[in-house]
């Protein structure tokens, strides 16, 4: 292998934006989940471990809007679930920010590629 200078173009800013976004998403999710964990140990001390049979989650922990409204009433499970939603949103926002980044760089082939990924991702989430 050769060892001359970096051929990758000005992607530096794009890289910084994306890594910053991932970091922010992950830290936000972690902080919310830690808060939820503290609430859980206060609200439900001595809960039994019962996951041997599948019972699905109650509806309030399965729908995005109920999770968000319940989280603001500080019910521990809803708060944790809200943190998980933030975690799930992070990769989607990462694709969105890459799309914007490639558009700023006027790299139209990659704007197209990223738009396809974003479209498939959104379709699979909302269909």
């Amino acid at each position, binding site marked *: 292998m050769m060892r001359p200078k970096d051929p*990758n173009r000005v992607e530096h800013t794009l*890289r910084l934006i*994306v890594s910053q976004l991932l970091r922010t998403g992950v830290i936000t999710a972690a902080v919310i989940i830690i808060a939820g964990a503290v609430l859980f140990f206060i609200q439900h001390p001595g*809960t039994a471990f019962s996951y041997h049979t599948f019972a699905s989650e109650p509806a309030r922990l*399965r729908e995005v809007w109920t999770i968000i409204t319940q989280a603001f009433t500080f019910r521990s499970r809803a708060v944790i679930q809200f943190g998980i939603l933030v975690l799930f949103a992070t*990769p989607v926002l990462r694709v969105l920010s890459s799309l914007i980044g490639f558009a700023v760089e006027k790299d139209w082939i990659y704007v197209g*590629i990223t738009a396809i990924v974003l479209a*498939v991702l959104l379709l699979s989430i909302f269909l």
Partner: protein
Amino acid sequence: METIIAILFAGALLAGFLGSLTGLGGGVVIVPLLTIGLGVDMRYAVGTSLVAVIATSSGAAAAYVKEGITNFRIGMFLETATTLGAVGGAALAAILPAYALMILFGVVLLYSAFVSFRNRKEESLPVRREQPFSEAVVKRLKLNGSYPATPGPLIYRVFNVGWGYLMMAVAGVLSGLLGIGSGAFKVIALDTIMKLPYKVSSATSNFMIGVTAAASAGVYLTKGYIDPVLSMPVVLGVLLGSLMGARLLIRAKTKSLRILFAVVITLLAFEMIFDGITRTI
């Protein structure tokens, strides 16, 4: 309950650490720990594993992207294959013999563990012959890159884009179909087929698995597979583990990483073959 949460946190720490070093995501450790270790129902295990994969991916990718190890363009380009594959896999789940396929995929993993171990001293695997079509795509999409190393950045070339793309589609189908194993096939596509340096393969796979997993997140949430109490220690453990793994990868020797990869996917292969056999019978 507190003891089990502590066990899950420790397991997740290991999952995030191994997942970020190998590019496999956190599911490799989480699923067997929950099902075999703690007797948790498979559906909760798969849901928790999905949470672990997204956490590993985002946690490690933040570091890898910043350091410039991830090949951003390859990642974005191949995500078209994995996301479309994932949607296709979920749609085909009712028709395909999913568990019989697990045996086949397990055997493929054993083979690539062997290839990885045999070539443990190489930064990137040897190229058999160049393909003009692949060359044209690589040039048009600017896929070649470089990554930081000592004493200076290493420049690398990308090969066999067509086959790599196809393998990525398989990885996507696999994650839509079974919810596991897609990280392993991503590393195989990047490392074994496209001949990227191992660190770049691992970092780029890590970068991609979060998006593939996010494509199934909505379905899993709606079906009630995502439990907050199981996920709580897993997310926190995996995040911490993946940050530690990412720090280590940057300095680690490729040889040790390849050996680690070979060991972990051998275990994953046995897990898949065993699961495939017990479920088809």
